[in-house]
């Protein structure tokens, strides 16, 4: 694979020579473009395809924007990007195969959006050849392994717990019912929210979590949870099924509040159920309500004809940060050097490129962005204060 990249750089050098000849002849300032491939392995078919495609849309958009602007400048050379996307159907072994394929093509930056795949390929990052793994998953184990070539995008969810719980307990009462999804992430959330709820003095009912991906009808799980007469329901999984859980609960006469896990997005849920059903929910503030995101939202909607989710927004951010880090590091293929510049790159970028307000990248490789949570009241979003910010 080294030969391939060697070849292409030889071609680059030749074309560079030709280009400088052209420059000399024409007196124009045209420089030959160097194209850097960015790898992506995610679920592009099957049940999780919507998720993989959302992630890809954010990457595509960032790359298209940079290319349209003429690319970024690395060591005086104009660099444009190309996304090489491979389907792994959410299966870790296929992620591993894809990653090996991508590194064989001389690709040094690879985005993976699911915990299983990330944990599988993490040990490969510093084997020959090295690559920077951009991880889009909140799984804490990703950071625990202290891998030096991992860049983790989503913010930690433990920041949400305290304000979610205190808001809802104050507003509705002390009994929590559980109807979250049973994905790995959903289970962690359920455990964390149970801990926080009891810590603040509430009681938690039986866990009625169901797999949002394989359940045909949620109403029986909801009926079971409501039989315990909870004041607040913990729900969440992908937005659409979550909205249907809300619907089932409201239709069965539930008047209390919802704690909505961050995977579900209000902006997608309210296209399925009336906004009134969401009244009394707490969750992540819709991307479009963030200050300074209007440009991103408008452009995204123009390109993809749908509301951007945080999947799209955070990966858009990730791609921009990586490109900026290449600029700062003066290299497009030295993963270590690029990783070292991520923090500076995150701080240097304007918010129009990062969507969320970025505070930097932690030493452990974790993007530190300010995430805002909100409660819904009367169809309006009210921002909530986050007390503990993870550093």
């Amino acid at each position: 694979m080294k030969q391939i990249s060697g070849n292409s750089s030889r071609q680059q050098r030749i074309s560079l020579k030709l280009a400088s000849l052209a420059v000399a002849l024409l007196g124009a300032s045209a420089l030959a473009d160097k194209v850097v491939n960015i790898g992506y392995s995610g679920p592009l078919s099957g049940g999780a395809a919507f998720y993989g495609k959302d992630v890809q849309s954010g990457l595509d958009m960032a790359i298209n924007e940079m290319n349209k602007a003429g690319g970024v400048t690395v060591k005086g050379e104009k660099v444009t990007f190309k996304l090489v996307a491979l389907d792994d159907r959410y299966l870790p072994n296929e992620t591993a195969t894809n990653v090996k394929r991508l590194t064989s093509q001389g690709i040094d930056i690879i985005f993976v959006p699911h915990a299983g795949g990330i944990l599988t390929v993490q040990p490969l990052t510093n084997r020959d050849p090295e690559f920077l793994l951009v991880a889009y998953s909140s799984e804490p184990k990703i950071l625990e392994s202290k891998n030096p070539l991992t860049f983790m995008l989503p913010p930690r969810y433990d920041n949400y717990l305290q304000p979610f719980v205190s808001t809802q307990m104050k507003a509705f009462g002390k009994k929590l019912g559980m109807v979250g999804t049973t994905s790995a992430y959903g289970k962690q959330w359920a455990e964390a929210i149970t801990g926080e709820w009891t810590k603040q003095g509430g009681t938690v009912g039986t866990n009625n979590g169901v797999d949002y991906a394989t359940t045909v009808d949620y109403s029986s799980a909801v009926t079971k949870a409501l039989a315990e007469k909870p004041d607040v329901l913990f729900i969440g999984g992908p937005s659409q099924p979550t909205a249907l859980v809300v619907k089932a609960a409201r239709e069965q006469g539930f008047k209390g509040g919802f704690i909505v896990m961050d995977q579900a997005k209000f902006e997608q849920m309210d296209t399925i159920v009336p906004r009134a059903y969401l009244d009394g929910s707490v969750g992540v503030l819709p991307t479009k309500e963030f200050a300074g995101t209007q440009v991103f939202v408008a452009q995204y909607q123009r390109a993809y004809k749908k509301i951007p989710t945080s999947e799209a927004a955070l990966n858009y951010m990730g791609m921009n940060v990586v490109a900026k880090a290449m600029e700062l590091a003066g290299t497009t293929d030295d993963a270590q050097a690029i990783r070292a510049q991520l923090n500076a790159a995150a701080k240097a970028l304007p918010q129009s490129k990062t969507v969320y307000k970025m505070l930097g990248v932690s030493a452990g490789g974790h993007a530190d962005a300010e995430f805002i949570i909100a409660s819904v009241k009367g169809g309006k979003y009210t921002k909530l204060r986050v007390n503990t910010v993870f550093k």
Partner: protein
Amino acid sequence: MSTFLQQLFNALALGGVYALVALGLTLVYGVMRVPNFAHGGLYMLGAYLSYAVLTGLGWGYVPALIISAIGVALLAAFMERVIFYPMRNAPHVHPMIAAIGVLFFLEAAVQLVWGPDFKQITEPVPGIVNVGGVIITWQRLLVIGASVVVMLGLNYFLKRTMTGATIEAMSQNREGARLVGVNTNRVGMMTFAISGALAAAAATLIAPIISVSPSMGEVMNLKVFAIIILGGMGSVPGAIVGAFLLALAEVFGGYYISLDFSDVIGFAMLVLVLALKPQGLFKRGT
């Protein structure tokens, strides 16, 4: 008590949908001896066609249901002609693999046309009825009512019409049917068409309650296969009983034991029944 009734009602609505999907599968198996793994794909396509008619053409729910049923029926008949009829004498594993190929194709094609995102079909009659503490949504009532109507209609068709009687005769005894001069050639195509229409109708009925996505057929596929084996492959009453049994087991198993258990229970039941009664609940002539 009201929780029990609520769950019973949930189970009936679910069972109605399972029954419609399973009936088509069991008919096809009875007549063609094809374990049609593409059936879940037809069900999924039915939901998308209805979605397209509703949002694309802006027509009503009932026309959408009818158009989608006709569309899927035609496609199923076409599939039978082009793929399954030529393979009618091959070992069963061959058409099964071909059906999986069709399923792959349908899922990918739908994802290409409509995208991988969840789609939503709005309820034709929104709102709820409260009967003594049991909350009943109009959509679920509609599901139960429509599935009963469709099942009665199918029964009438199989028992009282010439074509229906032919299908039944053939599912009971293929060779015998041929000997008494039944045109077995056409019957297979008819059966496929009916199974497609049933799957599309079921999908359109349940779509407002669940989300429509390209992989919705995979989940349904395994469940309806469990149902028709449970009931005895090829048996019409078996499919209906199996469907409601599975729905009741899932809902009440989830309620009284554990929701984790509700996914497993259908298959556990299947394995148990087959271990005790290898022919399924409703034995039928082969």
